[in-house]
């Protein structure tokens, strides 16, 4: 059960009595045996913290990810495109909620995570700090950004923490519609006029590199990877996932008749992999540090939504309290 009732300090006392070290040995034995860890099970503080950081960051990405796409809601070219875009954005909101509730089982409240997001204490995927300048960007986001997200999320379905793994199963099922939705938009553009095809190419040119940066730094530079691998939170390394994504995506680009904006991209017959050029990690670091094209805009929009929605939350709580008091009075009378 997901109740927080057992995550209280009384439990901690028992832990200390038994000895942190023995607990940890038993915990690692469970991880090694591929057992799932559930919210009320004993876990090292660092495992809990790592998961809270990762899951809340993941949830924040889903929520912030609604913003660049929302930009095109009112300008979608047809009713069909508008309906599918709305459904996709609604899914992203749902994914954020699955993830926030998975993180809440670890003892952090959703309000606290929201607070950490708008104060900049918690991050979200840096890909959402890029603007959506043309309709083709909606196609590209579905195809590349959701495609990269799926690549990242599939191994997370086997993550050692039960609620996170279960949330990921739901998310992955729903995401495949997103990717197909995006690719279909690009197909339509690429089968259209020269201008439409040029619009698709221009969009890929802007989104390709940020998309492959979504897998994070190279394995040699990744700070959290080793521990996360040992805990089976992470199952496949950043570089391996990136390669898988590129191998799957390049032929899809060729099918569209689009060029990948990487002059060094070539197929290696021996390895069966696409080799790619040097990634500009300075750009990645700049966007992560808050200097991307839309960082301020995204947080401002989120803060506004939070502030403007506050009265609704307060009114709903006041209403619920009043109703409960009335019911209690009636019973007493």
């Amino acid at each position, binding site marked *: 059960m*997901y109740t927080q009732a*057992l995550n209280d300090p009384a439990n901690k006392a028992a832990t200390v009595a038994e000895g942190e070290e023995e607990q940890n040995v038993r915990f690692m034995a469970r991880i090694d045996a591929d057992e799932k860890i559930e919210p009320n099970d004993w876990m090292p503080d660092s495992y809990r913290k790592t998961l809270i950081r990762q899951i809340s960051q993941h949830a924040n990405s889903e929520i912030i990810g609604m913003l660049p796409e929302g930009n095109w809601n009112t300008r979608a070219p047809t009713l069909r495109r508008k309906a599918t875009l709305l459904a996709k954005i609604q*899914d992203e909101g749902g994914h954020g909620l699955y993830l926030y509730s998975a993180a809440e089982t670890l003892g952090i409240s959703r309000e606290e995570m929201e607070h950490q997001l708008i104060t900049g204490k918690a991050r979200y995927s840096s890909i959402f700090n890029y603007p959506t300048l043309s309709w083709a960007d909606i196609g590209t986001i579905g195809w590349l950004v959701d495609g990269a997200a799926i690549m990242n999320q599939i191994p997370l379905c086997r993550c050692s923490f039960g609620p996170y793994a279960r949330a990921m199963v739901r998310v992955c099922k729903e995401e495949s519609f997103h990717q197909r939705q995006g690719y279909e938009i690009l197909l339509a553009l690429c089968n259209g006029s020269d201008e439409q095809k040029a619009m698709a190419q221009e969009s890929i040119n802007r989104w390709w590199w940020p998309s492959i940066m979504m897998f994070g730094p190279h394995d040699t530079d990744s700070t959290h990877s080793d521990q996360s691998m040992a805990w089976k939170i992470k199952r496949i390394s950043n570089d391996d996932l990136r390669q898988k994504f590129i191998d799957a995506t390049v032929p899809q680009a060729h099918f569209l008749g689009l060029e990948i904006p990487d002059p060094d991209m070539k197929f290696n017959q021996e390895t069966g992999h696409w080799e790619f050029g040097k990634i500009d990690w300075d750009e990645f670091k700049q966007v992560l540090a808050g200097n991307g094209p839309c960082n301020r805009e995204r947080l401002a929009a989120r803060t506004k939504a939070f502030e403007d929605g506050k009265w609704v939350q307060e009114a709903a*709580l006041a209403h619920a309290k009043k109703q409960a008091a009335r019911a209690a009075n009636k019973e007493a009378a």
Partner: protein
Amino acid sequence: MSDKSKNSPIWEVFIRSKNGLSHSHVGSIHATDNEMALQNARDVYTRRAEGVSIWVVLSSDIAASDPMNKDEMFEPGSDKIYRHPTFYDIPDEVGHM
């Protein structure tokens, strides 16, 4: 931790996926009362016809067994192998039983 009385409480969501099956736990949501809990559960967990019935219950109203006491709690269920049909020797000639 933030002030809990200012936050909407957490509810656990149970969904009957189709007629004839029992409700099972799918996750949780936030809401201030029963009605909002049901609506939020519908919006978050049944966007693709995943269910025909929803139960919501305040998380704080659920009593749960403590995983620390798992061994004592469930030991009576695992040490009585005579509760399983395979414990009994029946000659093959008797046929399926």
